[in-house]
C-alpha cells in the first residue's frame, strides 16, 4: 500500500537502503578516525581517503601477488598501512603540531597527491575487481528484499569496529589517556605519559581503521586509485554536519547520511551525489557548530 503510494518497488527501496547503510558505515568509520586523529594531533588528515584507498590496494596486491586471501588481508592490510602511516607521522606530521591547523591540512593534501599519484602511475586509472570471499557469496531472500551475504557482513563488521573503537576510547585505561591528551596534552605529559608515542599510536589507530574500511569496500566497489578522494570529501561534509566532538555522534551522523543518500538514489537519482552537501548547507544554516558539536 505504502509502496504503491510512493511508486517505488520495495525490492529497489530496500536494496538502496542497504547500500546506504553500507556506505554510511564507511562514512562512520572514516569520520571516526578523522575525529580521533584531530582530537589528539590537531591535524585534519586529508590523506585519510588516500589511506583508505591504500588499504584496498594493499589487499588487492596481497591477493594478486602472494595469493593471500581476504580474511588474512583484513588484518594484514590495516597493519601494513598503519605502519606506513606511523612512519609518516614520525617523519612529517610531527613537525607541524606547533603550527596553525591549515598547515596540517596542506601537508596531508600534499600526501594525497603523492600517494594517489604513485598508485596511478603504477596501476593506471582503471578499476580492478576484488572477488567476494567464497564463504560470503550468495544471499538470503527475505521476501521483501534480497540480502547479499557480503553486504550484511560488511555492515556488521564496520559497525562492530566502530563500536569497538568507541569502547576502547571511552571505557579503557589507554582510551582515557587519549581523551586526556585531547583535552590537555601538556598536563598529561606532566603525569609521565609518553605523549609523542601516544600521538603516533593514535595516528596508527585512525589509519588502520581507514585501511580496514578500504579492505571491506574492495569487493563491493572496484579497487581504484581515486576511490579515496571521492569519499574523503563526503566524509568532510559528514564531519561538518556531525561535529568532531563526539564519537557516537560521528557514527550516527555517518549512518544517517548514508541512508539519506540511499533514499535519494531511489526517489531523485540526479541529486544522490549532492544530497549530503545540501544537508550540510542546511545544517550550517540552522546549527553551524554541527549536530553534535560543542561551541
Amino acid at each position, binding site marked *: 500500500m505504502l509502496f504503491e503510494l510512493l511508486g517505488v518497488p520495495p525490492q529497489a527501496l530496500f536494496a538502496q537502503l542497504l547500500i546506504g547503510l553500507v556506505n554510511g558505515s564507511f562514512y562512520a568509520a572514516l569520520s571516526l578516525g578523522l575525529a580521533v586523529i*584531530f582530537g589528539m594531533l590537531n591535524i*585534519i588528515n586529508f590523506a585519510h581517503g588516500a589511506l583508505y584507498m591504500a588499504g584496498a590496494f594493499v589487499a588487492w596486491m596481497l591477493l594478486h601477488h602472494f595469493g593471500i586471501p581476504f580474511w588474512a588481508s583484513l588484518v594484514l592490510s590495516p597493519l601494513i598501512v598503519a605502519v606506513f602511516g606511523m612512519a609518516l607521522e614520525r617523519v*612529517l606530521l610531527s*613537525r*607541524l603540531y606547533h*603550527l596553525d*591547523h*591549515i*598547515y596540517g*591540512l*596542506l*601537508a596531508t*593534501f*600534499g*600526501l*594525497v*597527491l*603523492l*600517494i*594517489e*599519484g*604513485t598508485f*596511478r*602511475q603504477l596501476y593506471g586509472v582503471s578499476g580492478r575487481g576484488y572477488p567476494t570471499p567464497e564463504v560470503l557469496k550468495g544471499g538470503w531472500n527475505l521476501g521483501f528484499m534480497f540480502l547479499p551475504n557480503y553486504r550484511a557482513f560488511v555492515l556488521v563488521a564496520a559497525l562492530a569496529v566502530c563500536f569497538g573503537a568507541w569502547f576502547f576510547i571511552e571505557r579503557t585505561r589507554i582510551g582515557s589517556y587519549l581523551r586526556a591528551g585531547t583535552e590537555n596534552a601538556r598536563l598529561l605529559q606532566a603525569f609521565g605519559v609518553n605523549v609523542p608515542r601516544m600521538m603516533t599510536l593514535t595516528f596508527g589507530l585512525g589509519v588502520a581503521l581507514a585501511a580496514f574500511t578500504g579492505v571491506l569496500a574492495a569487493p563491493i566497489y572496484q579497487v581504484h586509485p581515486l576511490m579515496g*578522494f571521492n569519499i574523503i*570529501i*563526503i566524509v*568532510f*561534509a559528514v*564531519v*561538518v554536519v556531525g561535529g568532531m566532538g563526539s564519537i557516537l555522534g560521528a557514527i550516527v551522523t555517518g549512518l544517517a547520511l548514508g541512508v539519506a543518500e540511499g533514499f535519494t538514489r531511489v526517489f531523485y537519482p*540526479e541529486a544522490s*551525489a*549532492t544530497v*549530503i*552537501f*545540501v544537508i*550540510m*548547507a542546511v545544517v*550550517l*544554516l540552522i546549527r*553551524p*557548530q554541527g549536530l553534535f558539536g560543542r561551541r
Partner: protein
Amino acid sequence: MAEREAYALRSEVSGWEARQGAERGRLIFAAIAVLALICAPFAVYPVFLMKVLCFALFACAFNLLLGYGGLLSFGHAAYYGTAAYIAAHTIKVWGLSPELGLLAGTLASALLGLVVGWLSIRRAGIYFAMITLAFAQMIYFFALQAPFTKGEDGIQAVPRGYLFGVIDLRPDLTLYYLILAIFLFGFYVVYRTIHSPFGLVLKAIRENEPRAISLGYRTERFKLATFVVSAALAGLAGAATVLVFQLASLTYVHWQTSGEVVIMTLLGGMGTILGPFVGAIVVVTLQTHLAAFGAWLNIILGAIFLACVLLFREGIVGIAQKRLKKLL
C-alpha cells in the same frame, strides 16, 4: 628641548624620504615589470604566457583570501569553473560579445561566492576549508550533470569573437594584450584592496578576530566581502581562460584545480603581492613539461607541497624579500 625637536623633525624627514624612496622604487619596479610583460610574447609562446597570466590572476584572487584574510578556501575551482562555463555558454550559445561574456561569467562567480561565502564563514579555520571543498564538489557534480555544460565533452569551440565588436581577437598576439590588461586590472584591484583601510581591517581580523570584534568591526561582513571579491576575480580568470583555449570543461571545476591554485600561492609565498604570480609561472611550466608523463605531475606537486609546508613556509617571494632586506 630645541635639540630634541630638531632631532624628531630630522628623523621624521628621513622617514618620509625613505618612504618616498620605497614608493619610487616600487613604481620603477612596476614599470619595468609591465614593460617586460608587454615585450614577453615576442620571446615566449603567447598561449603559454596567457595561461600563466590567467592562473596568476586566479592565484592572486585566492591569495587575497588566504594570505590577507587568513581564510583557506579549498574549493576555489568552483568560481573559476562556473565563470568559465557561463562565459562559454553566453558567448557561444547566446552570441554575446567577449567583453559581455567575461562580465557575465564574473558576475555569476561573484553571486556563487556570495551564497557559498555566506554559508561557509559561519565556521572558521579548518571547518571553513572542508565546507568550501564540499561546496566545490557539489558544483562539480552539477557541472557533470547539467545539460548546458555538455558533461565530459565540455563546451567546445567557443569563438573568441570581436572585442567591443571591433577588435578581432583571433590572433594570439591581440588576445595576449587583452589577457594582460585583464590580469593587470585584477592585480590592481587586489593591490588596492590590500593597501586600503579595508585591507588593514582584514589583516587585523586575520591576526586577532576577537580583538577586531571588540573594536567594533562587523568581522563577518569583511570576510564575506573579501570572499566575494576573491570569487569574482577567480571567475574573471576562469572566463579569460575560456577565450584563450576556446573551451570550458570539467577540469576547470575539478578539485585538482583548487589544489593547484593553493600550491601556486603557497610556493610563491602567501601574503606577498608577487608570490602568486611567481608560483603560477612555476606550476604552469611544470604542467606544460610534465603533461606527457601522466601522474608524475601530481607526484611532483605533492612533493613540492610537502617541501613548502615543512621547509619554506614563506614561499619563494617571502624568502627573497627577507634576503633582500638583510642585504640592504
